[in-house]
């Protein structure tokens, strides 16, 4: 820890607990990114030097590769379904067929004669929906809790921090599992709401620490003296100064939501009447794709999840390096 980080941590927490800032998402044990971002937020003066940022952004290989992967799959999700010649859930093809062009089964068919390509592109759409909605909900809750706790301090902070820590102790996945085993998920949106409303704590904690360190800066004091309202100070003075960090946080929440959703769908707690990538894996296992050697059934869905989430994380590291000059490769 640097002196600066330490002293902020000290001031911030007082008596409250400050574990490491590790995002708790299955994904990201990208532990120090918060601290580094904190530095970035403090050292760089907002987004003023946008041209410099762009200069480093297009030269950052990690960012560019990550972006290409994610954009590729996003385009695939948008336009792919128009090329599907079958419906995802319709039994209209020869069962267990390897990838071929003849029937329009580009990715082959499953054990029951459903087209894998149609399922795959449909699943991609669902994946982006869950990731974007779930990630946004978690980001909004995290921002509300984190900003309020960091800005208000005192009792409000104590209570919010306690709530955050309690939620952080709960094994996210087990909680969602229990909730959704009683309340069947109706659609992707419901699932995303479940996921978003439980995966925010690490973001809240990280934002709280950052808000706290910014709150003691002169420009915030000035705004306070001039009689600005609290929420205006938060959204006009504090939030813009960590816009880069907020964006990076959203990427991690996006990836985390995708992984949780895939796992839920795999257990059979996903939305009904859809075919997500996680559900494809579930049907592949229960439909004995392993025994029959139907690799085209279970390889694409997992590969896509891995590449999309991995690409998002790559963007995250790349952005971190762009925003934080100290991390750029020398």
């Amino acid at each position, binding site marked *: 820890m640097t002196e600066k980080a330490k002293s902020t941590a000290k001031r911030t927490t007082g008596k409250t607990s400050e574990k490491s800032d590790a995002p708790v998402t299955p994904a990201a044990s990208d*532990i120090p990114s918060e*601290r580094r971002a904190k530095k970035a937020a403090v050292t760089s003066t907002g987004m003023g030097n946008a041209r410099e940022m762009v200069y480093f952004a297009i030269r950052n290989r990690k960012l560019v590769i990550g972006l290409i992967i994610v954009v590729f799959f996003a385009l695939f999700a948008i336009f792919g379904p128009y090329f599907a010649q079958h419906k995802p859930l319709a039994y209209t093809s020869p069962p267990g067929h390897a990838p071929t062009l003849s029937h329009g089964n580009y990715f082959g068919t499953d054990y029951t004669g459903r087209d894998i390509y149609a399922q795959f592109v449909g699943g991609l759409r669902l994946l982006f929906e869950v990731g974007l909605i779930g990630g946004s909900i978690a980001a909004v809750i995290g921002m509300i809790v984190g900003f309020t706790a960091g800005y208000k301090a005192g009792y409000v902070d104590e209570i919010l921090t306690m709530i955050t820590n309690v939620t952080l102790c709960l094994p996210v996945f087990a909680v969602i599992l229990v909730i959704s085993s009683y309340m069947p998920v109706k659609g992707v949106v419901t699932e995303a709401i479940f996921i978003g409303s439980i995966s925010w704590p690490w973001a809240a904690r990280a934002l709280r620490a950052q808000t706290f360190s910014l709150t003691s800066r002169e420009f915030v004091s000035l705004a306070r003296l001039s009689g600005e309202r609290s929420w205006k100070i938060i959204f006009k003075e504090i939030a813009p100064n960590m816009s880069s960090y907020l964006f990076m946080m959203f990427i991690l929440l996006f990836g985390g939501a995708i992984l949780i959703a895939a796992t839920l769908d795999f257990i059979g707690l996903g939305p009904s009447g859809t075919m997500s990538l996680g559900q494809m894996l579930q049907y592949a*296992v229960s439909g004995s794709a392993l*025994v029959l050697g139907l690799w085209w059934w*279970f390889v694409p869905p997992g590969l896509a999840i891995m590449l999309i989430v991995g690409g998002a994380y790559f963007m995250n590291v790349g952005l971190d390096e762009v925003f934080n000059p100290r991390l750029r490769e020398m």
Partner: protein
Amino acid sequence: MRRYFARKLITYGITFFAAVTVDWAIPHMMPGDPIAALVGRLGVQDQATADALYRSFAKAFRQDIPLWKQYFYFWQSLFHGDLGISIMQFPTPVTTLISRSAPYTLSLLIPAILLSWYVGNKVGAMAARRKGLDNTVLPISYLLTATPYMWLAILLAWLFAFIWRVFPIGFAYDATMQKGWTWAFIVNLLYHWFLPFLTLFLVSLGGWAIGMRNMIIYELEADYSHYLEALGAPRRLVRKYAFRNAMLPQITGLALSLGAILGGALVTEIVFSYPGLGFQIFRAISNKDYFVIQGIFLFIIIGTLVANFIIDIAYVLVDPRTRIGMQGGQA
């Protein structure tokens, strides 16, 4: 230090209370009347009989008393170690089911968590600020953390159990084996254990490597590292100090990662039909065996809290500042 533990214990206490309440409340908040559904499923035509059945079921499930009393009884039976009876595997108590399957889950989780943490830290520390190594370790690590557990499990099962047939798949030991502490049995157990273990190990390895790599880079930029370098200390010494400092967040990270790897263990067990808690809860979900779901959830919560507490103690042992109440004490 006392304050540190007091705070932690309060947090864990509230967490436990909240978890138990959620566990109890969810079936009660569910729309619809579960007992009516149960009576309806029996298909009784006669209205009087149906009413009588309804009353007796309500009594049996203690639904006829006020809600606060039901809640109280829930806690009471919890402290008596009574988690109800499995509906599907009637009349096995849920606690028996848990004690039967928990060892399998723990035997996967504990070695996977500790080994991946250790190896990941070493790999990450080696890769930091070494361009060649970093360029291979970092992408691989990121892809590993982004891999869904069940997919890696499926791939490993397919490659090693179906294509090369090196490892067996399904259950904790061969059905033909005689259970007992013989060598043959232990070897057989290990054979079945290896692939699920490898899945958990690999996926969580990536996260630790990334975390450690980033922390080391961060520490190498710290003032004390620059000072040591300026004094002419060998690179290795500087890295050693960086490693020790980078260790602390990794220990707390361990507590935060428990939830994720636990979810991973559940789905990995499902792929390999490994008879642990995940397999059990999967069957319970598909059969709507609610007592089992409730019980396993509670067990997982208690396990996570205990693990959190052990990590807190480890942190105190590793970081001397916590002991004398300095700033690290807030960690």
